[in-house]
């Protein structure tokens, strides 16, 4: 071991152990760390501590960006504010109309199901978090958000923004968490094409603007422009949230599967604020309880659950008018809650 570093003459200087010996010690330490990190049981606790240690630095590194946003916000001109206000007013009115229609549909749905009491809303709690770090290299699509275990964030919690599904929580720290985005190549989300109810799985491509649907047969009924919503299978994402829109379908006679790309509905690379959902497991749109999935686990096999299957039929028939009805009502209902 010591013979490792002698040839360069390091011992002449007589400054502690040779670099070879030091390297060996550090390498062993690294191997032990990697071994511990690979064991899921310890890994969570380890990451909890590490997220805590990293949080101040992440906030500090992100502070120029947030200071810039604060500056532009506080020095916004009267004109822009007025325009923005008007736009928001219009949006609120549209949403109110949509909610009215939504409530009618919900009542109708209850009657059709012959239920005598209202269905519980899908979403129990909303939590708005700010993005404090982005890892957007080709092989890693992750976000760091400023809410952690102290705010009730837990692993595998779905993360959405105003327009669709963003991802799920991969690691939790006390004050911050790491979110794996749906565009991460190690992430797969069970989806459904709203036009015909076809279920499949969307896998991240590593680019912030692309999802891949690699399990569709050549002859499957899919075309450009189809809307994808979460199917509720897999136990992580509730059913009915917009996931993306098909942008390209390529079929080659020599291949068994079609090459299908989709564009995520959420604003993956521009999100500054995200929402964490905690859903009510009593609601029919909630995903069936499934064993906790790890981030890199392969797409789960569809679990046949009569309640969910029935609901999917229901939401499928109600969906053509707009994106997942449950999401819109839930967002509205969740508003008063901090």
């Amino acid at each position, binding site marked *: 071991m010591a013979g490792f570093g002698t040839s360069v003459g390091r011992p002449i200087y007589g400054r502690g152990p040779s670099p070879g010996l030091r390297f060996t010690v550090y390498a062993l330490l690294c191997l032990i760390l990697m071994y511990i*990190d690979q064991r899921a049981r310890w890994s969570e606790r380890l990451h909890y501590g590490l997220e805590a240690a990293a949080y101040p630095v992440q906030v500090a590194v*992100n502070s120029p960006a947030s200071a810039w946003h604060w500056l532009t916000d506080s020095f916004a001109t009267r004109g822009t504010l007025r325009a923005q206000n008007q736009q928001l007013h219009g949006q609120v009115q549209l949403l109110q109309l949509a909610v009215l229609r939504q409530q009618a549909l919900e009542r109708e749905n209850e009657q059709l199901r012959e239920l005598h009491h209202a269905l519980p809303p899908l979403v129990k709690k909303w939590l708005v978090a700010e993005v404090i770090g982005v890892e957007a290299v080709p092989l890693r699509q992750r976000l760091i958000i400023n809410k952690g275990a102290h705010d009730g964030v837990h692993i595998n919690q779905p993360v959405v923004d105003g327009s669709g599904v963003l991802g799920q929580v991969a690691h939790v720290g006390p004050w911050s968490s790491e979110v794996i985005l749906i565009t991460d190549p190690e992430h797969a989300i069970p989806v459904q094409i709203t036009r015909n109810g076809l279920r499949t799985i969307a896998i991240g491509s590593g680019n912030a603007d692309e999802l891949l649907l690699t399990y569709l047969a050549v002859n499957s009924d899919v075309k450009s422009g189809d809307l994808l919503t979460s199917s509720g299978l897999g136990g992580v994402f509730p059913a009915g949230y917009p996931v993306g829109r098909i942008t390209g379908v390529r079929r080659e006679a020599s291949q068994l599967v079609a090459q299908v790309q989709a564009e995520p509905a959420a604003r993956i690379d521009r999100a500054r604020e995200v929402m964490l959902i905690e859903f009510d497991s009593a609601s029919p749109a909630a995903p069936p309880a499934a064993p906790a999935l790890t981030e890199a686990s392969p797409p789960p096999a569809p679990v046949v659950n009569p309640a969910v299957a029935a609901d999917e039929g229901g939401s499928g028939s109600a969906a053509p008018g707009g994106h997942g009805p449950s999401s819109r009502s839930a967002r509205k209902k969740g508003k008063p809650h901090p």
Partner: protein
Amino acid sequence: MSERENLLVILLTSLAALVLNILPLPGWLPVVRPAFLVLTVLYWSTMSPFVAGAALGFIGGLALDVFQGSLLGEHALALSFVTYLALRFNLLMRAKPIFEQSLYVLVALVIYELVLWVIDGWSGHTLSSPLRWVHALIGALIWPVVVGVLGRFHAAR
């Protein structure tokens, strides 16, 4: 005393490099962002090998692991190994003109990526992008700049 100042400079520049490494960047910029911390550690372990030892490589790599969310110990092992190489061959490298140094740096960065690649595969992250080798090339290309900038701090002690 000058040695202690030097250590301070080394730590501060490494911290700055770490910040540059984890600074959120828009669009395709992260793809071409060089591994600043690796280059800084390489610089200090070749130019000032008795102050910046293997510990700098280990701790720097560990910091990368924490902030990049990789398997804990992955970058630490790769950077420790590269630091070890730099410590062993620093006399050889220091005597060379700067563009030849760039070639050595390229080799070191390729080894660094190779170690990461092997560990990725071993730990089940088998997906790999050819873009990862771009980092090595860009790192070698900006080595003269790194030497220019850090050399200032080095001379100023």
